[in-house]
């Protein structure tokens, strides 16, 4: 059992206190507005765009649809925690080199979704890649450069230089 107004979340391995919160606040809101982690983006707030994708106990979910106070006792990972030293991950690096970033708003969510895909499947086919990213909407790129970035990461991780 846990009280709502004051609770502790484990975000990127660190225990973070949340105080004086309303119980209906989404994890996205708490991350951005209370814990100073604005990497996860808020756009649709109804689970359609994927810009707020985070990992809760290793599952990639929309943080806008997680009631923050119910995430007590889970391991939450955000885009800020992908590399502890703040350097770019291979996925982020590939997004840069392949030009998969235009306005950038969807990028953190897509980066999380790509990490989740490739951490569970090192050789996804085109269909699997499209399905894995079907919950992330990008209105700039047309997705071509994003798929190119995914292909680059797959090749690099397999030691096939690109």
């Amino acid at each position, binding site marked *: 059992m846990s009280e709502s107004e004051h609770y502790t979340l484990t975000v990127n391995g660190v225990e973070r206190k949340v105080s004086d919160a309303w119980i209906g606040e989404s994890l996205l809101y708490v991350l951005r507005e209370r814990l100073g982690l604005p990497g996860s983006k808020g756009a649709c707030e109804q689970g359609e765009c994927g810009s707020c994708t985070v990992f809760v106990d290793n599952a990639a979910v929309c943080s806008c649809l997680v009631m923050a106070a119910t995430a007590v006792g889970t391991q939450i990972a955000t885009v800020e925690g992908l590399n502890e030293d703040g350097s770019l991950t291979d996925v982020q690096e590939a997004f840069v080199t392949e030009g998969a970033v235009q306005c950038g708003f969807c990028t953190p969510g897509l980066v999380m979704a790509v990490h989740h895909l490739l951490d569970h499947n090192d050789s996804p086919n085109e269909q699997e890649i499209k399905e894995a990213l*079907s919950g992330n909407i990008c209105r700039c790129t047309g997705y071509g450069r994003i798929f190119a970035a995914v292909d680059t990461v797959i090749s690099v991780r397999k030691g096939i230089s690109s």
Partner: protein
Amino acid sequence: MPVFIPSSLAEATQLLSTNLDAHLLTGGTDMMVEVNFNHRHPETVIALRKVPEFQQWNIDSNARVVHIGSSVPYATMEHGELAKALPALAEAARTVGSPQIRAAGSLGGNLGTCSPAGDSLPVLSALDAIVHLQSEKATRSLSFAEFMVGPKRNSRQPDEIITGVTIPLTNGWQGYAKVGVRNAMVISVASVCLAIHDGKVRVALGSVGPTIIRCSESEAWINSVGLENVDHAIAQEFGAKVRAESRPIDDHRSTAEYRRHAVGVLAARLLLRGVQK
């Protein structure tokens, strides 16, 4: 305004018995949309994510049934053993929202909300699933038809929690089809589950009536015709009979006319797939 996170079924039912107006929450993918848009202001929430029984599933091949706990996410039903045992449920699960939604959403949520558009519900109806409910003092098991009584209305009592479902395996083909405005991330405009067991067809419709509709007249007709006699003309006639049993309305998602047309097409298509297997 507390949030409770019980870690056992006994604790969950006890908490509910003293907080009868509490919202029961599994993944949150439906309720949080309403909260985010200020359509709902929860006062008390009982989050069921830590109750171990709700996370479990198993396939009992002797009894020929599958049990799925109410918080098992759709992602688990899409692949592997569950998908092999219940292909129609796997197909329905794969059409729920996006991968992010399927990682959180569950049968408990679909049953609790009981929307006629709930993607898993036609499958539970066509497969004759049993819904299990538990209160602090008693356990009840209801057929799907007894459970869903109207649009967003079910026969769960205020002190009861949906613990899971038992789904009998079929010895014939089963499949699911859904129409929406696009492929990913869409709420159904019309959906159909068709299953064959002991050579008999069962068919259930979603999004075309106040509840999921089991098409008993169409089932009786096709079973009198006999599956061995199904051809394109018979399938078309079956589709027309299914269409006649649907009771769709016009709303913001589609029109009654289109929905009526679509369920007939889907039912005929599934029947043909079923007999060609």
